[in-house]
């Protein structure tokens, strides 16, 4: 599960949420040319990886574990997040960024409407829109 964080969420907000919720910090990966910066909380049951994805100017959390729904609800209660509907609404005002972020907030199984948006973007005459769609395709990793 991935949860897109609002642009206002910074490291201090994440730390505050982590301390209030008791998330143990377990690792930090610095940004490299091929890897975005990651700050990882977790224990033996779950991992919560916050990603500063500089390639698409996004901050999101990747949730792993056998009860990610509970963890996701806790995260949404602690930090401002953006839903699929929020990103859809951005398509009108900030199209390139919104297409990229569809790759983050899209569901794990194919969704016809998103599929249509991405197919259309992949044939766009604007190279930036095509690149955004390619990123989203790769991130969604649908069959």
């Amino acid at each position: 599960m991935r949860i897109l964080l609002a642009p206002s969420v910074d490291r201090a907000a994440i730390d505050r949420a982590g301390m209030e919720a008791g998330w143990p910090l377990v690792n930090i990966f610095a940004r490299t040319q091929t890897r975005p910066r990651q700050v990882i909380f977790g224990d033996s049951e779950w991992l919560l990886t916050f990603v500063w994805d500089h390639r698409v100017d996004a901050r999101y959390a990747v949730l792993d574990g056998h009860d990610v729904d509970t963890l996701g609800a806790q995260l949404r209660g602690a930090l401002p997040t953006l839903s699929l509907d929020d990103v859809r609404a951005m398509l009108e005002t900030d199209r390139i960024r919104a297409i990229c972020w569809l790759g983050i907030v899209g569901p794990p199984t194919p969704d016809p409407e998103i599929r249509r948006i991405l197919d259309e973007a992949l044939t766009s005459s604007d190279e930036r829109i095509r690149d955004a769609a390619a990123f989203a395709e790769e991130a969604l990793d649908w069959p």
Partner: protein
Amino acid sequence: MTLPIERPRLAGHVQARFHLTGAQEKVVLHDPRSGLVLEVTPDDWRLLEACDGTRDLDALCLATAKIGRYRGEGAIEQLIGELVEAGVLVDGLPPPPITAPVTPPETPADRPLEMAPDYRFSCDGQGSCCRFYGSIPFMPVDALSARLHAADRPMPIAPQNLFLPVSGAHLDPAHPAVVAQVNGRCVFLNADERCDIHASSGAEAKPTVCQTYPAVFVDDGEVVRVSATPECACIFDSAESEGGERLLPDTIRLRGDLHPLIAPGVVPDPVPLTLSRTAPRSALRAWSRTAHDIARAADRDAAGWALALAEGMTTRGLDEIDVPSLPLDGLRPWIAAFRSRAASVAQTQDGWRHASDLSRQVARWIADALDSQDPFTAEPRPREEGFYLAMLMWGHRLSTGGRPLGHSLRDRATRILTARAMRLVPAPEDISSEHPLALVEAAVRNLSIAGYANEL
């Protein structure tokens, strides 16, 4: 987020001391170069321990998380930023030590110890020395024994905070460590003002430095002079009383009999007398023996005599010792500088020490006495002041502080006058007023007043 320096490390000269003050645990960082005193929390100290010069901000986050003390990247960044600004953190690992082409010779193991003549010491058991020194170093085996002792009984301070490094943030088990304090008292001083280790396991179980206190060792090239550091009332009382014991057991007669980590001070050769005049070390040996005898005779004003010796260093060098005292007016700039420094130190101590802390009380006593009294009109105490100078002279203590002998003599004359002023005002409730000179001497070293004379 970023740090002002990439990989912070507590500077090697900074001294961290763990204190329980009232109910508050704190680590006090003291920068002896600047006189700066900073307080941090025990959690902050755990972070500083992790600041070993190899960890960047991310690594510090992880290091504190690993020990369960992570409070957020922003908190780390803020603390590091403040400490960098205060000048107590440096960047990266320390540079490798440079091997000196010529190293000073070590004191040979067969060098005899020469004890202060006609002096036997009797401790009054008041625990004053255990209540005043901010840095009581335990040898590695002493620290281990003390930890075992602490493990068997309730202690006011958690085991991991009982010892901190002598300086810097890296506690090396092969080197001495400094014991934590409760309201300025050694954590092992019990409610009966007795060393709990001594009470439980006997005198031989006491830490090495406590067993050898108040003995001080200085190598003059022929012998290691052993004197009593005149920093405790019972050291003065012992000079006037019968009985007592040698400063060291009869079995300790050579340098090699001392603990290997006890490093005697060394008299430089030649000995600086003034900024432009020196004398051979052999001449100092003779001078200090005669000066000791004159000082013990106590037949002249000790402060004025010390000043006369200092004034004569330029012209007479070490040649004339039996000289009359001089009027004390030449010490007015010294007293002014001492007064200023003492006032600043007292203010600092008031800021962080508990009201019952002996160091705080003494600092305030000194500052108030010099602020309200004229030390130049106060009555001398010839025997006490003579003994004071005698011990310092016998032990070559005026020639080992890195300053010329003349400077040290004026400094000690200033301390004598300060003690005279202290007798004119009431002593704090918890303190024996009998020997304020002992407290001045201890305070100058313990509370970093010594730098007062740097500009003179």
